């Protein structure tokens, strides 16, 4: 067992968990944050992507111990007071959601990119989302959403 102190979506969390648990298990089973999905459990599909200390990570590949003192952000943190983030809004406008199983991971990979780089090129967007598989959309509306979000964010900054 391991005693963990870390921060999830802005809240400090203290937990004692089995040290073989993965961050994905901690989020879903211990904290009830089931927005993060398990698609493969071995870091191949990206469905479980969350942001940890500013980086997009596959939460199925992060062991409990690595979470100590970390700052973790999940899909549940994007919508504030029932207002979607600009990124979510762009996904909505572009019809980027089909089955929705890859969507939380896609959003978090895209957010991690935009947090660091507010003017990504098309290649940078494609590279940032390369580890997130989607079988439904053919990626086109997802890439368009990220481009739109970049515009919206920059427009908001300008005004």
């Amino acid at each position, binding site marked *: 067992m391991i005693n963990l102190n870390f921060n999830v979506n802005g809240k400090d969390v203290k937990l004692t968990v089995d040290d073989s648990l993965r961050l994905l298990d901690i989020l879903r089973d211990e904290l009830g944050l089931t927005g993060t999905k398990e698609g493969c459990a071995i870091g191949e599909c990206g469905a479980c992507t969350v942001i940890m200390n500013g980086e997009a990570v596959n939460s199925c590949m992060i062991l409990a111990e690595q979470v100590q003192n970390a700052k973790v952000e999940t899909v549940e943190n994007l919508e504030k007071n029932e207002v979607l983030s600009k990124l979510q809004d762009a996904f909505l406008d572009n019809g980027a959601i089909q089955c929705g199983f890859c969507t939380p991971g896609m959003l978090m990979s895209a957010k991690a990119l935009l947090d660091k780089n507010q003017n990504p090129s098309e290649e940078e967007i*494609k590279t940032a989302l390369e580890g997130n598989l989607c079988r*439904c959309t053919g990626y086109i509306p997802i890439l368009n959403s990220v481009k739109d979000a970049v515009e919206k964010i920059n427009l908001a900054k300008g005004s």
Partner: protein
Amino acid sequence: MKSIRKIDAIPKLNGSWKFLDDYSYEEMIHGQLLYSTCHHGTIKKIHFPDGYNLSEFTVVSAANIPGENIVPEPVCDQPYMADKEVFHFGQVIMGIAHPNRKLLREFIRKIKIEYEELPAIIDIKECLENEDNVFGKELIIDHRTGRKPDPNWIHHHKIYYTPHQEQAYLEPQGMIAVWQPKEKIMFVRATCQCPFFVKEGVETIMGSAIKEAVIETSEGIGGAFGGKEDFPSLLAGITSLLSYKSGKPVKIVLEREDDIQITTKRHPARIEIETWTDPETRKIMKIYIDYRLDAGAYQTLSPVVLARGVLHAISGYSIPDAYIRGRLFRSNTPSNGAFRGFGAPQAFAAMEAHVESIAADMNINPYKFRRKNIFRIGNEFPTTQPILENNLSDCLERVIEKSNYLQKLEEFKEWNKTHKDKKGIGISIGYHGGGYTGNGEKVLNSEVKVVIEKDATVKIYVANTDMGQGAHTTLAQMFFEAIDHPREKCLVQLPNTSKTPNSGPTVASRTIYIIGNLLRRFALKIKDELGFENLDDYVSSNQNEFPREFRMKFVQDPSVVFDEENYVGVAYKDYSWAACVTEIYFHADTYQIELTKSWNVIDIGKVVNQKIAVGQAEGGILQGLAYGLCEFFYKAGYGRMHGFSDYALPTTMDLPEIDVEFIHTDSPIAKGLGEIPMDFPAPSVRNAFHNATGIFIDEYPLVPERIFKSLTADERR
């Protein structure tokens, strides 16, 4: 054509929409499947590992089945669990459950099974080349005229091979069974396409031990593409048995490697085509097609895939003399099953390649050769079904025009003269018959139900599931647009077999085409019967009549008559049509094909929701292009793939520009859309590669290793 937002979009964006694994029940325990790692053999002994308290585990096997050990399918030949003999790798032997999922996995991994091994066929070619492996009924479309080929007709004879394809839905297969002993009801929460198939599956294995199975889907179904058509029946059966024996709710979510290795795939095919073409008229005069599918160890639904395969095998060409035979071949591999396209992608992969080969051999422009032979009003399918529209030809003309195909052919020819890398451009066409084949829709006899509440909310009850394709948004839209009712007052309910009439499975591009058009007519019928102009006003002034339930059944057009013995008649009432041009860049040093752009012109008739339809098309086209380019599941000497590292799905980095245009959208009928985007793109990649290099590859996909072999073989010649 309004792009109404999907009703599930916001909860999918904020993480609150529940998929199967997001559900939990009190005292729920976890299950997994123990399956064969032997391809064919008899089970001699099963050794459970030491160091575990066996009384904590619930174990079920064939011996515990109170009902029948046969999964209900078009051909009932597959057991839920093997008894003494296993016929393929991945055949389920036991279901095992335990409260601790991690401990359960560890326990199952340590179980050792002793087999007496028997001869097995695991290689695709070994299966498909040997006619001793044929099983099931041969299908024949015989449209021969008896005329002998003229001596000057040019004969072409080739064999084409297509691989398995993995559906790769992002949400793995999963099921939760909750046994309710007092009511003798087995409640099952399912991620599936066909709740009533699952119901039949559970009731078959449980027999008289239960009164009824009630199936409700999870809110979210994380992709399916055909993969959640029949496997869920087997999984639900075993999960139910575990719940029945343990007395507790049981959840099984397959691990990805298990899901990839043991569930159904697209059938690998061997398609042999012989044609005789008149050099004067440039018309294909006679064709013989031998269409073979590797069905796996059991037939299950393969005969239905075979039917669609032979019915689409000729592609879109009018050929006066045709003979098409379709056969299933047995192998010791998991049964192959449904995947978007359902036999048609294999057919077009072969015939669209063949047509390109004829054109090249006779030195005819591939577009002009297609135009010469393409279906037109007055022609007929080999089943004698008349062609009633020129829409396929319209798709071809439009895609040639917008892709600038003819000009690019010349440009690339020049460019290629001075470059080691090559550019290429290729055509393909395709179509898809909407709904069940032949008399299938008549037999299904689909029924839908709506309940109009006191506040004029319309609740729509259909068994068709929304697995991401937007069905529940589009179906509701077809209803409320017909009577001009507010969209927020018209909602499709979560499918539940105790509340929803059986409107059939979510397959065969039938959801919008059959059920959607039925709901549109239904809305108008209710409006007519009640005599309202505005439903809100009517309900508020006639409160005592509501809530009120209405039901309506699908009635097949009487012109749809199909002779299933002789394969003569109308196989599908309406067809969706498509044509595609794909441009590639061939990297000569790495033997890699880079897809640069794909133009696609599709006729699905009326487009109900433009954004959802374009999304379906783009996603399907990428699956189709990848089928031609990179996806395969079995490699001789390596075996079956294990996950997304060795099974190569396209990522954002592989994406070409994809252009989609719908034509003939003024049609009153919304035709099938789900499958056609997958049917036709693969051969355009192969044909573009030929245009770039002058080399034909007749085995899909066109991976660098295969191209390398072809090019070096060509140099050796």
